[in-house]
C-alpha cells in the first residue's frame, strides 16, 4: 500500500496566501494531478509560510527545492504538465530563491546519513503525514502489533533497556530504566505524557517530527502504554505549534478509526487513548513536574522531587514522561531490535541524534546524525559552512547550553565525552555564530530569556537571573562594576548549587563557559573605577520596567 511519491508539492498556507486564494489553488493542483494521472507520484502537502511574503500563493517542490510564486488558477494545468510530465522547471513563475530550511522541510546531507539511515526522521518528507495508510505502508504500527501479540511488557522494557536509548528531552535519562520505574508503581490508573512543549530556543526538532510523522510518536506512546500498564496518554504541546496540533489530532482520529488506538487494539484487550493538552506560553513547563502542574490547570511551577512522576505524577498517579523524539525511537527499536539500534552512535550513547543547526551558516535546519560527530563536521559537512564571517563560537543545547569556542570544534558530541569536559549536550540545538556577535550582547539576550522564563518560585533564580541580566547589560555598555565578573561567577556558581530546578541551575552553563572561553573579551566591559553605589532611598526601588510583557 506504500505510496512512495516521487515529489511533493508544498503549498504555503498562511494568512497572506489565503487572501490570494491559496486554498483554491491547492484544490486545483490536486484536481490537475489526478487528471494528468500522476497522483501516485506527486503528492500535495499543505504547509505554513514557505518564506517569500507578498508574492501571492507560493509553492515549493520537494526534494528539488524550487519555489514558485504568484501561482494563479489558470496556469496550473500548464505548470503541472511542464514540471511533472515533461520534467523541466516552469520558468515563468520560478523564484531564484531555493526552498531553504522551510518550515516543513529538512536539510540533510545524504552522503552522511545514508550510511546509517535515519531512524527518527525516516519517514519525514517521504510520506504524507496526514495519511495513516502511508505510515502503515512504511511498516507503521507493525512494532505495536508485534509488541502486543508477541511480547510481554517486561520483554519490551528489556529491549528498550538493552538498546541503551536515553531520553532526548535534555536530561539524558535511560528510557528503559524510567519505564521500569513506572511499571513497578503500584497505583492505578497510570498515565503517559509525551512532552512536546519544546521551548528551548533554537530547538524545533519535535515540531518537525510531529508535523512530519505524527503516527510514529503515537505508536511509540502506545508501546510504552502497553509496557508500563497505562491506558491513557496525553501529549502536552505548546500553544504555538498549531500545525502539530492539527496533524496529531487528525492522526489520533485516524488511528482510532482503524483500531490502532482506542479500545481493544489489534483485537487484544489493550486499550489506549491519547489526548492533547495545549500549553500557553511557558518554557519551564517543559520541565516534567512543572508540566504536570500545568496539565492540572495550575501555575507551571516545578514540584519537589521526590516523589518522582513515576511514583506520583499527573493527578498524583504514576506517570511516565518522555520527549517526542524519545517516543519516535521506540517503534524502530522494537521492530529491529536493540542490537540494530546499538550499531549507530557511540558505545555509551547509541542511536542517532536529531539536531537543529542554526545561526551564521549556509544551510540552517534539521539533521539526524549518529551520536558522536563533531562540531566541525556539523558546520562544514552538514551546514555548508559559515554563511558569513569567521566562526567565533557555538552554543550547544539551546540557551541553557554551554558556549563553545573554536577550541572545542573537534570534540565528539555525545553525553559522556562532553561530561568529561564539564559540558552538556542538552536539547540538540546548535547555534553557530561568527565574530560579529559580541559575547556580552549575546549573554544579555540569553539572560533576558531566563528572566522571562523563570517561574519565580525560588529566590536565587527569581532574582538571580534578573541580576545577571542587569550585569551583562552593564558589561555590554562597558559600565560594569570593578568586581562584576567575580560577582557574576559567584552568582552563577550559586545558581548551579542552590536553584530549585534545572532551569535555574542551567543558567550557569552559558555564563560559566563564556567566562571560561571568552573571559578576556568580557573583561573589556568592566570599568575598574566603578564602585558599588551605597544604597539610599533614592536608588532603592527606582522602578525599572518589568521584563515580562503581557498585562498581568
Amino acid at each position, binding site marked *: 500500500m506504500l505510496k512512495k511519491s516521487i515529489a511533493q508539492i508544498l503549498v504555503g498556507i*498562511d*494568512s*497572506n496566501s489565503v*487572501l490570494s486564494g491559496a486554498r483554491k489553488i491547492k484544490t486545483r493542483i490536486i484536481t490537475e494531478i489526478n487528471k494528468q494521472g500522476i497522483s501516485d507520484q506527486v503528492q500535495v502537502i499543505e504547509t*505554513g*509560510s514557505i*518564506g517569500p*511574503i*507578498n508574492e501571492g500563493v507560493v509553492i515549493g517542490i520537494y526534494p528539488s527545492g524550487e519555489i514558485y510564486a504568484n501561482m494563479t488558477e489558470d496556469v496550473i494545468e500548464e505548470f503541472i504538465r511542464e514540471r511533472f510530465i515533461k520534467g523541466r522547471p516552469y520558468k515563468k513563475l520560478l523564484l531564484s530563491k531555493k526552498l*531553504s*530550511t*522551510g*518550515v516543513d522541510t529538512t536539510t540533510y546531507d545524504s552522503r552522511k546519513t545514508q550510511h546509517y539511515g535515519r531512524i527518527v526522521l525516516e519517514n519525514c518528507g517521504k510520506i504524507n503525514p496526514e495519511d495513516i495508510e502511508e505510515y502503515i505502508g512504511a511498516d507503521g504500527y507493525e512494532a505495536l502489533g508485534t509488541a502486543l501479540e508477541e511480547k510481554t511488557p517486561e520483554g519490551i522494557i528489556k529491549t528498550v533497556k538493552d538498546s541503551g536509548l536515553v531520553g532526548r528531552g535534555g536530561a539524558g535519562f535511560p528510557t528503559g530504566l524510567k519505564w521500569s520505574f513506572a511499571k513497578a508503581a503500584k497505583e492505578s490508573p497510570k498515565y503517559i505524557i509525551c512532552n512536546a512543549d519544546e*521551548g*528551548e*530556543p*533554537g530547538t*524545533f526538532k519535535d*515540531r518537525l517530527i510531529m508535523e512530519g510523522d505524527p503516527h510514529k510518536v503515537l505508536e511509540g506512546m502506545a508501546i510504552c502504554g502497553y509496557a508500563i500498564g497505562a491506558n491513557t496518554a496525553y501529549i502536552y504541546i*505548546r500553544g*504555538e*505549534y*498549531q500545525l502539530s496540533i492539527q496533524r496529531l489530532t487528525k492522526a489520533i482520529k485516524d488511528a482510532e478509526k482503524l483500531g490502532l488506538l482506542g479500545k481493544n487494539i489489534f483485537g487484544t484487550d489493550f486499550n489506549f487513548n491519547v489526548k492533547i*493538552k*495545549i*500549553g*500557553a*506560553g*511557558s518554557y519551564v513547563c517543559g520541565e516534567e513536574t512543572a508540566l504536570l502542574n*500545568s*496539565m*492540572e*490547570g*495550575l*501555575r*507551571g*511551577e516545578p514540584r519537589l522531587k521526590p516523589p518522582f512522576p513515576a511514583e506520583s505524577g499527573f*493527578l498524583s498517579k504514576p506517570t511516565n514522561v518522555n520527549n517526542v523524539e524519545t517516543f519516535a525511537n521506540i517503534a524502530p527499536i522494537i521492530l529491529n531490535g536493540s542490537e540494530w539500534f546499538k550499531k549507530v552512535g557511540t558505545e555509551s550513547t547509541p542511536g542517532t541524534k536529531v539536531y*537543529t543547526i*542554526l*545561526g*551564521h551558516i549556509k544551510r*540552517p535546519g*534539521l539533521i539526524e546524525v549518529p551520536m558522536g560527530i563533531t562540531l566541525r563536521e556539523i558546520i562544514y559537512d552538514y551546514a555548508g559552512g559559515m554563511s558569513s564571517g569567521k566562526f567565533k563560537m557555538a*552554543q550547544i543545547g539551546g*540557551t541553557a547550553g554551554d558556549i563553545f569556542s573554536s577550541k572545542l570544534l573537534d570534540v565528539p558530541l555525545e553525553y559522556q565525552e562532553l561530561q568529561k569536559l564539564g559540558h552538556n549536550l542538552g536539547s540538540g*540545538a546548535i*547555534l553557530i555564530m561568527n565574530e560579529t556577535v559580541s559575547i556580552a550582547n*549575546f549573554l544579555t*539576550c*540569553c539572560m*533576558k*530569556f531566563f528572566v*522571562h*522564563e523563570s517561574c519565580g518560585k525560588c529566590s536565587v533564580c527569581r532574582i538571580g537571573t534578573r541580576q545577571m541580566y542587569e550585569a551583562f547589560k552593564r558589561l555590554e555598555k562597558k559600565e560594569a562594576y570593578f568586581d562584576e565578573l567575580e560577582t557574576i561567577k559567584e552568582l552563577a556558581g550559586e545558581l548551579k548549587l542552590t536553584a530549585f530546578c534545572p532551569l535555574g541551575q542551567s543558567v550557569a552553563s552559558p555564563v560559566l563557559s563564556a567566562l571560561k572561553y571568552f573571559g578576556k573579551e568580557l573583561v573589556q566591559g568592566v570599568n575598574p573605577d566603578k564602585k558599588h553605589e551605597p544604597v539610599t532611598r533614592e536608588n532603592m526601588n527606582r522602578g525599572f520596567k518589568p521584563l*515580562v*510583557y*503581557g*498585562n*498581568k
Partner: protein
Amino acid sequence: MTVKEIVKEHGNKRENLLQILHDIQNQNPDNYICEKAICELSKEMNIPVSGIKGTASFYTMFSFTPRGKYIIRVCESPPCHILGAQTIFEAIELKLGIEVGETTDDGLFTLEGTSCLGVCGVAPAMMINEEVYGNLDKEKISKILSLIQNKERK
C-alpha cells in the same frame, strides 16, 4: 459562546482550565480574559478567582487587559537575536508607532516580545495571531503589516 458553554464543552475539572482560558480569550474580540469572565468561570468551575488569576497570569499567552485584533509576537531568543530580531522590533515600532506591550490606537495591533517560537530555522521570526512569519527583514515587515492594514480598512 458563553463561559458556561465553554466550560461545558471541556468539562469543569481543573485539568481543563488552560484549554478553557484559551477558548475564553479567543472568543473575546479584544483578545483578553476579562474580569467578568473570570468571575463566571470561578462559579462554573468552583475555583477561586485567585486561583484562576494565579494560573492564567503565569502564562504569557493570556492577557487581562484588552489587546489588538492582531497580536504580533516577535521572538527575542538568542537564535533570532543574532540574526536581527532587534531590527524587527524597530521596524514594527517605526511602522505602527507602538512599543513592546502597547496597542495601536486603531485597536488593530499589539506588539509583544516572546521567547523562541520554535521556527528558528527561519529566524528572525514572529507570529501574528496563529500565523508564523520567518526570514524577516524591514521590507517584509512593512509589507506584511500593510497587507493586514489594507485588508482591515476595506
